């Protein structure tokens, strides 16, 4: 069957095609009732709710004219900053509004939304209506795909544990569903000043012990130069710093396991937090203000040339007057890798009146072709093939150095969050503990113990019984 996307694509509708289509539709009707209807008429337009800066809205804006060419109708794009976006998305879904056909969804939101976001597993299984090769579901980075898009609708706290091959039929068989297609994969990477490293004859650290040594060597407060930024201020970033270290030191970086037990108040957790506190308090390799730093302030500190290394989600840039060079490395490991990651996906509003077209739209936006074009604005792709293309593109490597190489490798070993409807509260309990320990107000083990008690109470209040 040839899928007519719009004015630019003619439909070759022959008798043979008609017979094949009829047989295909009959098969689909028998197998996948949700998607068995005839293709719905083309809408006047689709509407999409998207994140302003956290998921590179520039890349999506740049793709919108191509979308119109490909589909023959417009896509109206609304972008909002994080907090407003979450409130808007939840309000739209809570009120049953059909206004947005496509919504961007962040991983921490999804456990509460499995009955409001449309499962697309059946559509993925019957992808015959899409242009050949567009969906290529097994091209997505498996860790990213499973952590972002695969949930059990009535047990949204469960992580997928059925292997690392993306097989929609197996997903369906095990009672899970696919709830969207990953679009922007954020993971902690280590940006460092290649010029300073070369000058001081040091290389990018491979372990956290090396990290501490390098950071100490590159710290000289009299020259207003510190080894590294850290994000120990009150906010999600402090939890993400800690969960990365926890995973690297051999703990469970999810913080709370699928049986609702806090797993961060462990020997590995205490070791990780003690190491973190020592970087700030004992070794003093971080600039002043680290215990109130966030993603943004850490990026600004690095950008103004005050730090030689910066673990961050952000795209790092140096101010023109600093005049150095940035290179990237994976976040060091200790006993294993464990950088925190969290990915945005494009999902379909279950109240949308244009579900089939919305599916075609998200397949198009997350396709290899569109993601490859979006590399120019530094979209963080979710497909392996796009990373391979990025590393072979000399224009991109000239502009962004080894950024995509490191990003792709880091995503393969990333560790996500626990799947809890009240993750915001759990997150807060942990960042308060990390912040209190980082500024020396309490000992790391006391901070973690208190946080674990608080998290147990929060989980019980939310109805999560171990």
């Amino acid at each position: 069957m040839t899928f007519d996307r719009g004015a630019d694509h003619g439909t070759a509708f022959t008798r043979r095609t008609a017979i094949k289509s009829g047989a295909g539709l009959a098969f689909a009707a028998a197998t996948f009732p949700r998607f068995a209807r005839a293709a719905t008429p083309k809408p006047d337009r689709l509407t999409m709710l998207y994140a302003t800066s956290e998921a590179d809205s520039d890349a999506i804006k740049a793709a919108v004219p191509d979308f119109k060419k490909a589909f023959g109708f417009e896509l109206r794009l609304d972008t909002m900053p994080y907090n407003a976006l979450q409130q808007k998305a939840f309000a739209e879904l809570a009120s049953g509004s059909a206004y947005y056909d496509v919504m961007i969804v962040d991983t921490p939101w999804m456990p509460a939304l499995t009955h409001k976001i449309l499962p697309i597993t059946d559509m993925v299984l019957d992808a015959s209506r899409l242009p050949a090769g567009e969906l290529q579901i097994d091209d997505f980075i498996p860790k990213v795909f499973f952590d972002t898009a695969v949930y059990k609708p009535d047990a949204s706290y469960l992580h997928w544990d059925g292997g690392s091959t993306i097989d929609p039929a197996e997903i369906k068989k095990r009672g899970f569903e696919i709830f969207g297609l990953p679009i922007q994969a954020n993971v902690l990477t280590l940006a460092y000043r290649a010029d300073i490293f070369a000058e001081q004859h040091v290389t990018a650290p491979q372990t956290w012990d090396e990290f501490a040594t390098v950071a100490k060597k590159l710290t000289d407060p009299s020259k207003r130069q510190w080894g590294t930024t850290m994000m120990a201020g009150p906010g999600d970033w402090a939890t993400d710093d800690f969960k990365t270290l926890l995973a690297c030191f051999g703990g469970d970086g999810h913080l709370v396991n699928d049986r609702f037990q806090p797993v961060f108040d462990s020997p590995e957790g205490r070791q990780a937090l003690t190491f973190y506190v020592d970087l700030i308090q004992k070794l003093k390799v971080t600039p002043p203000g680290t215990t109130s730093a966030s993603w943004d302030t850490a990026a600004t500190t690095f950008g103004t040339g005050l730090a030689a290394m910066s673990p961050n989600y952000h795209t790092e840039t140096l101010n023109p007057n600093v005049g150095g060079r940035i290179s990237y490395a994976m976040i060091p490991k200790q006993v294993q890798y464990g950088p925190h990651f969290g990915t945005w996906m494009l999902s379909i509003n279950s109240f949308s009146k244009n579900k089939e077209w919305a599916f075609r739209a998200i397949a198009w936006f997350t396709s290899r072709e569109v993601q490859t074009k979006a590399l120019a604005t530094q979209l963080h792709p979710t497909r392996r093939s796009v990373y391979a293309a990025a590393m072979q593109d000399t224009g991109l490597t000239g502009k962004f150095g080894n950024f995509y190489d490191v990003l792709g490798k880091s995503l393969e070993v990333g560790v996500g969050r626990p799947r809890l409807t009240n993750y915001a509260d759990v997150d807060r309990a942990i960042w308060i503990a990390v912040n209190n320990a980082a500024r020396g107000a309490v000992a790391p083990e006391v901070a973690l113990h208190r946080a674990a008690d608080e998290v147990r109470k929060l989980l019980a209040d939310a109805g999560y019984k171990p």
Partner: protein
Amino acid sequence: MPGGAEARRAAYLGWGLLSPALVLLLLMTAVPTIYLVYYSLHHVDLLGPGTHFVGLANFRRVLSDPEILRSFAVTILFVALAVAIEIGLGLAIALMLARRLPETNLLTALFILPLGVAPVVSALVFRVLLDPAYGWIDYYLQSWGVISQPIDWLGDPLNAWIAIIGLDVWQWTPFVALILLAGLQAIPQDPVEAARLDGAGPVALFWHITLPFLRSFIAIAMVFRAIEAFKTFAGVEVLTGGGPGSTTELINLDLYRLALQDFDVGAAAALGFCFLVLLSVVMQQMLKVLGRNTDILEE
């Protein structure tokens, strides 16, 4: 009785004319309050069919949470400190501006500038200014030899308190100064002249003439500022996010988190209702103070 009928007609007319405003007032105050109470007694599941009556469970939950009780205390302390400093500084500025110097108009215009800046913008600017790594405040304090090491303004509880109070004082002191300036300009000159003739110095004049005349204006400024200070959210959320730890966590930050991050509407409604009760009690006391100091409210 024609007189009685006329009085009744006048009363009906009065109620008739008043009724649109009364209906509007009820819609704007009573209905939301009833709605708030209704939700505070329910577990509200915005995204599913799980909304159900839970009695006082939401109240028990929020009032047994030590973090929330601490936030109540933090809020009261914040309001008390901010308003007291603003009244003191506002009075000093008003006294300076009341001297009718040639520069007074220019200074008045400059002093009211902070009132025109949105709290979020003020907080963002303060955040950059106070950054110990690249902010101007620490840079100049070090350059002038006032401090030897940068001060971590937002990473230490005491400094963070100075920062949030400083932001509020910077933003709202001009408002207090304007009210008190109006009061100073309304003081009759006869008693002042008489006191001067009797040999009263500046301190005696201020203490025995100016301050008693200003009492009603100070009370009005205090009530207005306290109401606004209890509503503080954006500035503190942007500047400290409630940190370090949870040492500057105001009750409004908890309300925001419960309602718009956790979407736990029932608990947020219960907390909102408790806050409303607290505010009503505090405001009742403040209005009594205001009433004792103003002729209008006494009547």
